[in-house]
């Protein structure tokens, strides 16, 4: 547990450093805002249409896929570390888990959840 102390201190040092880097330009730069400068950048043109557009469902699908396979990895870590003790029983248990997940993946693949048109 004590080895996390270093990371904890490191986190504060990194926070301080980034705050310093963020703060220095404020101290040294000259800031004069005008409408041209603060308007939204769209390749030099004025904005063409409403900023609100229909959100693509694909992003959700990818996010959900990520959560599922991230969980899979969370299960794989302890398995990978203790495989020498668990033997074939442990090995095949995980294979069963992976097969079930793979079938879920096959389903997604065939349904076209991974196709970006």
């Amino acid at each position, binding site marked *: 547990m004590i080895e996390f102390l270093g990371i904890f201190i490191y986190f504060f040092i990194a926070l301080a450093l980034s705050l310093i880097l963020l703060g220095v330009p404020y101290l040294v730069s000259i800031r004069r805002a005008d409408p041209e400068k603060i308007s939204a950048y769209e390749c030099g043109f004025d904005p063409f249409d409403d900023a609100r557009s229909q959100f693509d469902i694909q992003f959700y699908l990818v996010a959900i896929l990520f959560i599922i396979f991230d969980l899979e990895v969370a299960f794989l870590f302890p398995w990978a570390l203790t495989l020498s*003790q*668990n*033997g074939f*029983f442990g090995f095949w248990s995980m294979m069963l888990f992976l097969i079930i997940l793979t079938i879920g993946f096959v*389903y997604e693949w065939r*349904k076209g959840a991974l196709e970006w048109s």
Partner: protein
Amino acid sequence: MYLNQPIYNQVSFSSFLFENDYLALIPEIFLISAGIFLLVYGCIFSTSSTYNFPILSTNIGWFVILTFIYTILLIYNAEINNAILLYNTLVIDDFTQFIKICCLLASAVTILISLDYLKAKSLNAFESMILILLATVGMLFLISSADFISLYLTIELQSLAFYVLAALKRNSEFSTEAGIKYFLLGAFSSGLLLFGCSLIYGFTGTISFSECAKLFAGTAGLSESISTSTFSIPACQLGIIFLLTGFLFKIAAAPFHMWSPDVYEGAPTPVTTFFTVTPKLAFFAAFLRLFLEGFYDLIDTWQTVIIISSSISMILGAFAALTQNKIKRFLAFSSISHAGYLLVGFACASIEGVQSLLLYLIVYIVMNIAVFAIILSGTRHTKNHTLSQIKYITDLAYLAKTNPLIAITFTITMFSMAGIPPFAGFYSKAFLFFSALSSNLGLLAILGILTSVLTCFYYIRLIRIMYFSIPKTWCNSVRIPRGNAYILALSFYFLTFFIFYPAPLYLVVHKAALALCI
């Protein structure tokens, strides 16, 4: 070498440890593998351009029914009928085997009576069938769960499938609303349940029901302020209250019933059928085991809660259904009042109570399946020939003229639901009240009888509408689909002729109750 020796032993030990356990789990293993197989089959063929993107819901529906029938056969012919499996995680005995068979039958019948409806309403998602299968898998494991972890995990497996099923009809606002409501409230109730589990685990250090029973044995007389040296009883009582809250949420008993009318109304009708009939079986099975085995010595705590919830459910179910105009909402409130009656059997906490509860559950399932088989058959308006569902109670008007046979079946089912003598509903209800009386719950029995007199009013109102009220728009009932017709006929015979030969069911139910209580 010294280190390797025990590890080697452990490997050979663990690989043979579960050999017989898997033998006992063959029905579930078969069901899961069939589900996976059907999922792959469905997703490959439904997206295949060479087969012109076929709609597979009916096809896979029949496959799922077949799978359920095979699973029933596997359970019925199981070699191992009494065992504790997988490190005290699951248990099988006569009780679980009986409930599992009932659960599978109910799911199969639900699919059978909704196939034509799905086709007519073009709800073309074969996944719904797979989800019903997965929910049933979850319920089978729930029925045989013997510790808190398997209890919670299986509840989540079946609930997750249910949330998706409730929101099956994506283009309907009601269905999505039902899905969201069910998801939020269901997740909340699961959270309460999980908190109850963790309280009990935290204060006893065990997750197994039978270990809990040993731990609490003999603590019944202790006053609530006393904490024994190893664990604290008041904390465990708090955990039990949370567990009960989660349980009452899931079976839609008042005062935790708020979700059920909206969800029943909004979800597609086949899904409503599934929600009405199967989960009650599984939840009652799991919680009967938990409370009658694990917490039997803390009966003072949970019996009070169940009695209160039971009486509120009966009263609310009797009064709230009076004002309902939509048939699915009406049935939701009717099922709340039935949950109240079922809880009477739970509160008895005796063999007789469990027996009457199981009998009531079976009759309840048969009655609901009969009603939904009629609703799912639909009506056809004379002007435009589209199949429409019986949505309002008044849609039943003059069914006695347009389809007298269906009207009679519906009438018998309603009489049975109301508990009118020669039908099965009466016997199950009477048996329930007898067991309540013999467990010194006289007030509960009297309340049950009074509310069941009240419920007669609205059940008979439906019959009046069918026979005597003249409708504004005439609707012809369609030719009932073959599957629905068979199911209707069977349930009609069951409800009518149960009186002549009730012995087999009483015996089976008694055997199941004995397996649980002894």
